[in-house]
């Protein structure tokens, strides 16, 4: 391994790990699992923003959250609540960063986000959500939540084998833009913003691209899309090869990143005014509802 490589690479999921999951072995339908992990990743993103954490740290938390569920030895959604694991991933990541969060802040942020009646809310919902009692935590409830946070943290560490290393593609992305002479340039900021938007969105990808592809490939795909949309001309020829990305890999990632929009629209329509089940009780209720539906059919 070349020196410093660890700062550029992530551990990746093995094909065996990607073929099944603890949840599926426990009888969770794959589509429900996909919905819950997508909603959990979104929840982590929103909670991180509420806590004013830098995006790099939020991204690390989402990647740890996603890793937790893959593979037959990964966590099962019938054993661990997605919201708890999301909170633990954010707490753990912040603890290793220059922005450690108090357990109380984490617990409060998640209590607030849990008080919304639906999962897919327009941005305006936050302004009109003024019923403070719905997210007030009593002292007892708060310490119970904190204890659950610590237990979930220990479980996340065990399932991940204490491997908390995450490399993110943001710095590489800027670096590559500089190497491609987009930086400094008139449209540099717009292109970088767009590329970062693709990188952030990819965190929520149902193809789990952060678990299957290294940061440098993700950065190249984001730049490719951002430059094409922004009408910025990149060098002729296979410039991605300079960054050690093959055409096939780039093609796969470009398709994956662009397909995300359709997936999200589908999720929004499917769940509409309902909540994606993020607690153990909600998951069981959803399974029962589906069971009932099947029986009726």
């Amino acid at each position: 391994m070349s020196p410093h490589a660890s700062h550029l690479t992530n551990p990746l999921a093995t094909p065996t790990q990607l073929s099944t999951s603890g949840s599926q072995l426990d009888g969770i339908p794959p589509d429900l699992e996909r919905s819950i992990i997508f909603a959990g990743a979104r929840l982590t993103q929103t909670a991180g923003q509420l806590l004013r954490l830098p995006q790099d740290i939020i991204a690390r938390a989402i990647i740890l959250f996603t890793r937790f569920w893959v593979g037959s030895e990964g966590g099962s959604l019938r054993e661990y609540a997605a919201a708890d694991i999301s909170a633990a991933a954010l707490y753990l990541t912040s603890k290793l960063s220059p922005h450690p969060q108090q357990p109380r802040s984490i617990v409060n942020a998640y209590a607030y986000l849990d008080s919304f009646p639906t999962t897919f809310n327009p941005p305006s919902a936050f302004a009109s959500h003024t019923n403070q009692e719905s997210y007030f935590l009593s002292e007892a409830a708060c310490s119970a939540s904190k204890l659950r946070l610590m237990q979930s943290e220990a479980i996340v560490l065990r399932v991940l084998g204490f491997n908390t290393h995450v490399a993110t593609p943001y710095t590489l992305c800027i670096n590559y833009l500089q190497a491609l002479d987009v930086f400094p340039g008139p449209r540099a900021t717009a292109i970088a913003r767009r590329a970062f938007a693709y990188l952030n969105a990819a965190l929520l990808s149902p193809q789990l691209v952060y678990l299957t592809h290294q940061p440098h490939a993700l950065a190249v795909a984001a730049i490719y899309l951002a430059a094409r949309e922004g009408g910025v001309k990149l060098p002729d020829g296979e410039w991605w090869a300079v960054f050690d990305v093959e055409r096939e890999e780039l093609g796969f990632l470009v398709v994956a990143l662009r397909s995300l929009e359709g997936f999200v629209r589908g999720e929004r329509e499917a769940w509409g005014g309902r909540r994606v089940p993020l607690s153990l009780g909600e998951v069981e209720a959803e399974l029962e509802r589906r069971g009932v539906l099947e029986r009726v059919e």
Partner: protein
Amino acid sequence: MAGKSRWADDDADAQARKREKEEKRRAKAERERRAAEEAAAQQRQREQEALQADDRPTDHRPTKRRRLSEEPAPEEPAPEAPLALLRLTAPSWSPSRRVSIFEQLNHIDEGTYGTVSRVKDLSTGSIVALKKLKMGRIGDGFPDMALREIQTLQECRHAHIVDLKEVVVGTTLLDVYLVMEFLEHDLRALQEDMVEPFLPSEIKTLMLQITSAVEYLHDHWILHRDLKPSNILLNNRGQTKLADFGMARHFSSPPLANMSQLVVTLWYRAPELLLGTSVYDSAIDMWSLGCIFGELFGKEPLLQGKNEVDQVGKIFALRGTPTEATWPSVRRLPNARALRLPSTAPPPPSLRPAFPLLTTAGVDLLSSLLELNPAGRPSATQVLTHPYFTEDPRPKSTAMFPTFPSKAGLERRRKKLSPNAPMRGEAPRFGAGDFGAALGPIGEGGGVWGV
């Protein structure tokens, strides 16, 4: 929705589900095994076909095409010269295994934040060291020091840095153990049992090894922050390995502001830390290295202060008092305000009298490592190229290293009192009076000390 849910979770249900899950897991593993065997068989067949194809004349093109359309996967011939792309190795992750895979052999040591034992891996029979992490209550979360140590050790792969093999867990969420390679000695305990100090040639070998590990850390932007002989392990093949990364952290250039000054065990703590700086860099590790170098010659810790103030006194007694000229920014350090530093002072006393057996190059290296001004200390890379290591006697080959009776836990060693790594909390602030008392006799030489 009314009535008892058929998913209701009672014990029997949970048990049944667990069993079912286990069965599915086994079935899946079996299927995968079969699939893998079939794939391997196919692969062998394909390879044979390919071999036969290769035997034919090379200008027989259709063969090649046919093979391509059937099976694109194996060794697809690139139309042009293949691009030499960097392939990064990607490890994976898997859940922590149970500590019960190890058999306890004997207890080795109890450190500030963990108990170490020598254990045997029941599946492979290999001997490893097992360090049980000390935890508070579950309500405090996983200690960040332990997390940092795990992360740093996972990042480091170096011949002279202890290898963290894996992290295993016990039955409760609070039982976490680090599995590390087992080394017979640590340098502190070993020196306590030795009659004579190491030979100069042996010291060179040890210093080269330790410094190369420190160079690796600094190259990877990691500060160890607790270098001392008891954290340097030695095996019976003359190899040292750095251990105990609980204090380690990443650093940057320019250095981050507001790092903790409560780092490094007192006797090995650099003067700038003692004087209260919160902005420091790799030079603090180099100071510790200098202390270790001196200790290897004398077999005794070089600067055994009783407390922070006494430590500063001992340092200045050995290396002279700093002046504006020798250490320009010293007056701006928080604890230096209690000192009235002289504007002129005699040049620092030579280290020669304290180390009569050291060569001129050796004295030069030691003085540069124990330079009061952090900016004046050499980097680890510079130390490695110092003439001291190329002059006679040459560094002793590790194969020729003496072995010592392995004491690691086979008998309880008497433990000498030595200070531990600093704990979290308030850094002490010195009052003017503290220094007046501690440094009185030293101050007579040149400076006037705080009233």
